[in-house]
């Protein structure tokens, strides 16, 4: 479905085949359908923004993709493998990483330890759990690189809980990068971030997408942020996928405009 032909650096060889396929995805909890028959494909290296009014099912969709909510219908396929029934940790190991709407870092660990933990998970270091945490091992290197990427290398030895809100969101990105996911789910990364930090964070996300060739799905309310980043925009409304198209076409879609009832996109 993607129209991208210029492969981003680091994109998979099979750039044509979708990296993420969602087919008829449905979730009903106690009779209430919170995600209703959602289907879409995402190509490798693509940036898809997910927008919609509050309660439209955006976070629920992410929870279904990352395995935190039980799927009651449909399938999720990652890189050709059906992961509909896989546990959250198994999905993460397969390359589906996510951040949460609420800022989620380990406040009692240092900034570096936060990232290191993720690197350990990726490198399979937990197989040798008694091994000492050394400043010269592979996990340490990955942690350093991820922190440099988001511009937090100078704060590495401080406690994560002492970071500003914007920096915490950058740390979340660094944690995610350390797990080297193929597909990145970002749930409102700008939520609670001060206006002056939005630009810096947007730049980091753009870098991650363009330079590392990551496939990104991002829930976001700041339309101005999305317009510069997203290849396509998915609009959710009442649990359904209302539209999925380029940003300009989506904003001029009458159905979308009606869903927002005059709210400015």
């Amino acid at each position: 479905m993607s129209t991208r032909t210029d492969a981003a650096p680091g994109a998979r060889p099979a750039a044509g085949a979708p990296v993420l396929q969602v087919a008829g995805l449905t979730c009903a909890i106690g009779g209430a359908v919170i995600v209703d028959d959602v289907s879409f494909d995402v190509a490798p290296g693509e940036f898809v923004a997910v927008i919609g009014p509050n309660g439209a099912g955006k976070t629920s969709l992410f929870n279904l993709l990352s395995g935190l909510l039980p799927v009651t219908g449909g399938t999720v396929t990652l890189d050709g493998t059906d992961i509909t029934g896989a546990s959250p940790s198994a999905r993460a190991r397969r390359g589906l990483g996510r951040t949460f709407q609420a800022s989620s870092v380990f406040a009692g660990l240092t900034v570096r330890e936060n990232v290191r933990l993720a690197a350990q998970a990726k490198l399979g270091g937990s197989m040798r759990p008694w091994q000492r945490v050394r400043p010269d091992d592979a996990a340490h290197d990955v942690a350093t690189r991820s922190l440099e990427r988001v511009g937090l290398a100078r704060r590495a030895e401080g406690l994560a809980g002492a970071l500003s809100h914007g920096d915490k969101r950058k740390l979340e990105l660094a944690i995610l990068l350390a797990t080297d996911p193929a597909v990145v789910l970002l749930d409102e990364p700008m939520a609670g971030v001060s206006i002056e930090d939005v630009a810096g964070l947007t730049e980091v996300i753009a870098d991650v997408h363009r330079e590392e060739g990551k496939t990104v799905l991002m829930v976001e309310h700041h339309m101005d942020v999305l317009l510069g980043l997203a290849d396509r925009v998915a609009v959710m409304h009442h649990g359904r996928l209302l539209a999925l198209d380029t940003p300009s076409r989506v904003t001029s879609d009458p159905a979308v405009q009606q869903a927002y009832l005059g709210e400015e996109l």
Partner: protein
Amino acid sequence: MDTVVLLAITGLGLAALYFLVASGLSLIFGLMGVLNFAHGAFLTIGAYGTWWASDHLPGAGSTGWGFVSAVAFGVAVGTLVAALIELALIRPLYERHIEQVLVTVGLSLALVALVRAVWGADPHPFPRPEWTQRTTSVLGANVPNDRFLLIGSALVVLVAVLAFLRFTRFGLIIRAGVENRAMVTALGIDVRKAFTLVFAIGGAFAALAGALGGIYLGSISPGQGTSLLIFAFIVVVIGGMSSITGAAVAAVLVGLVQQFANYYAASGVGDLSVVLLLAVVLLTRPSGLTARVA
């Protein structure tokens, strides 16, 4: 002066026992969200294991290295039982906290009843190596040596646990898991692997406390672990529920308060003072002394 010294060192000895039990409790609660009421039974198992081994196990005895092997046996049995309980009974009830608590309460009753059925309800004299029966003069006070053994063991355990948590990969996973299990899972780490380990470590410390408590009291009986468990729980709450250093500080507070109140007020006032201390801490610092794990 000599009375104060004796009371202080005895209080610290008691604190050492509380800490050994409480450290496991707080790690288990912190990581798994399980209030382990069976923890006192691990202590009883460690005490009886040591006692049994000192008489029956080849190479083990009641003095010198023989006694050390007897304690090692008791600790090994406690560790094994704790690990098996986690695998067989706690793990299948993952995230079902009420059921987990009920299972541990049932186990605490059943294991103590089992010990009573096998070895009787009466206290048995516990082997006390000769060195622990002597005293050392500290600032004019004749302090029984077993106090130093208790304090020394607890210090070694404290340093070892802190080093384990700070400097190993598993330690990092445990500290992170105590803060937020779901997030550790989201990173692709199966945090349940750490559960068995934490349960086994807790069982080992409780069993060690059982053996040391036997030396301190001179005898063992089936209900000993359960009565110590109550104070260990108070220590865990005062210490901040999931903090090892908090548990250490709280254990010292509780041990000292209990000893001094029992001596200067009346026997039994010590227990009451501990409960008062708990109330004061909860009123002034509702989340305990500290909220960090290590």
